[in-house]
């Protein structure tokens, strides 16, 4: 009997620790499949960040380092500069990347570090129990914005892809989502392209994934997918923000 669908060899057999309905599992699969399909898995070094995905070093079937909170892009830089033929990627949430680690991320992008950043934006701190993130929406209730995020007090959700699109060293940058199969397929295409660009040494690549956190949002997984479409996408519109490859073509 022919196997039509199997778990990617890019993932270990360790059971995922993510909550039911969380989209980390989908994105992990897309990253793993991309590395396997491009033949890059055995040269890959994953950087796990601090947050729910801190254990991603247990799940990606490649070498890995676990970085201090926000420092993933610095650690990735340190590795990539001494091992230029390796494939180095970070996997970071919005607290890790857009808050505490924004300096490391911007400067890695600006240097055109030849690394790939998988940025999971679900508008909340998941691991620590649902606190406000820099990407939380105006009015969004979290454990540290219990009356809803107030623009006058907290500022507005930060737009990472829009900001990074202005940085010269960025070779490829796309915002995707995984709320339905069509978008999962699109997200896979983008992630694979980012790794392909890295393999071709084109510069900094980042994929922002507009994702979910049903547990800390207080929603059923299906409602969370709907909330992404209804509430998050108007603030974080999907699309291609930069593609140096196409510009050069």
């Amino acid at each position, binding site marked *: 009997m022919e196997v039509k669908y199997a778990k990617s060899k890019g993932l270990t057999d360790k059971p995922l620790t993510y909550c039911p309905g969380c989209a980390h599992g989908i994105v992990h699969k897309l990253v793993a499949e991309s590395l396997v399909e491009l033949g890059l898995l*055995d*040269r890959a070094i994953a950087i796990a960040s601090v947050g729910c995905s801190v254990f991603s070093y247990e799940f990606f079937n490649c070498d890995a380092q676990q970085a201090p909170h926000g420092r993933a892009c610095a650690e990735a*830089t340190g590795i*990539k500069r001494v091992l230029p033929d390796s494939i180095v990627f970070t996997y970071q949430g919005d607290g890790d990347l857009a808050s505490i680690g924004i300096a490391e991320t911007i*400067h890695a992008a600006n240097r055109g570090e030849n690394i790939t950043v998988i940025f999971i934006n679900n508008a909340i701190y998941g691991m620590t129990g649902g606190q406000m993130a820099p990407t939380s929406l105006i009015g969004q209730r979290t454990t540290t914005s219990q009356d809803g995020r107030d623009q006058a007090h907290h500022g507005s959700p930060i737009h990472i892809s829009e900001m990074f699109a202005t940085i010269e060293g960025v070779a490829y940058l796309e915002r995707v989502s995984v709320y339905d199969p069509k978008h999962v397929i699109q997200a896979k295409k983008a992630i694979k392209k980012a790794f392909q660009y890295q393999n071709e040494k084109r510069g900094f690549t980042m994929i922002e994934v507009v994702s979910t956190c049903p547990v800390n949002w207080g929603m059923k997984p299906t409602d969370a997918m709907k909330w992404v479409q209804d509430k998050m996408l108007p603030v974080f519109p999907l699309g291609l923000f930069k593609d140096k490859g196409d510009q050069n073509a």
Partner: protein
Amino acid sequence: MAKVLMKGNEAIALAAMKGGLDAFYGYPITPQNEVPEYLSKHLIDAGKVFLQAESEVSAINMVYGAAGAGKRVMTSSSSPGIALKQEGISYIAAAELPCLIVSVMRGGPGLGGIQPSQGDYYQATRGGGNGDYQLIVYAPESIQETIDVVKGSFDTADFYRVPVMVLVDGLIGQMMESVDFERPMKHRELQPKDWATVGTKFHPGRRNIANSLHLDPALLEQHNFHLQAKYREIKKNETMYEMINMDNPDYVIVAYGTMARIARSAIEMLKEKGINVGMIRPITIWPYPEKAFDLIPTNTKGILCCELSMGQMLDDVLIANNGRHKVGFFGRAGGMVPDPDEIVDAIVNFKDKVVK
């Protein structure tokens, strides 16, 4: 190579290259700037990696990454900059990665000043990062000795899989001395770095992970026990110190780095006054040479701890002395460097200097 006249910071850079440096990541701060400036030219010319990071925080995490990838890597900084690196240093120690951190001390606290100080003894030996970890900390007194410890530091770090710190003050960084880069090094049998995260292509069938997270408290305690066992080995094998003029001294000075250089002159001046003073000069300040204090004769009148700080090493002197002798303290701070006659006065008026 014949002797050459060289500035301390540049000598640190060249000694690191002679020790096999593969990559340097750092951020500008006075008074250590000649270290990255020198390497930005010579390390790149040698085909190795030099990168100026956007911050000290980022630089130490680049060190983490490259150390995890099995390379010989260093950073250098000064007091407030080392403070920013402490988080990363704790992670590197926890993940058991070898690297070199050079700390060229300036006056503190806070932004402080840029003149020589030893105010970061606690920072180096007690760790500002979280958890139970130690660095091997060398505190040389001359540019020659700095070269010797820097050159050997990568072997030492690799041998134990620990971060090594070389702690000097701004005076050693900024002055020039005649030095030799080819003095023999201690030979160590080093194991291949089969733990390095270089891609499974290079170690099929096994995943290498650099990590400091152990959520299970029982496993984390085991990891702590493992680290402590290693630190005990280091204590046993790597403690370094010099005993100077210890033949029945009236008093014993304890000083390291630049303060030891000044104390050497004071000891000569005291000799002329008929006062016989010896010195214990720690070369490693962690591990601390506690055993050297057992060699102080019982009839010695007192121990004077001298620092370019306000009594930090004094804690270790009190622990090592263990109540046997009177202990006095003389210190200057903020970038003020004493003349030898200030130490002479402190010995002559020892009773006014006694703290315990």
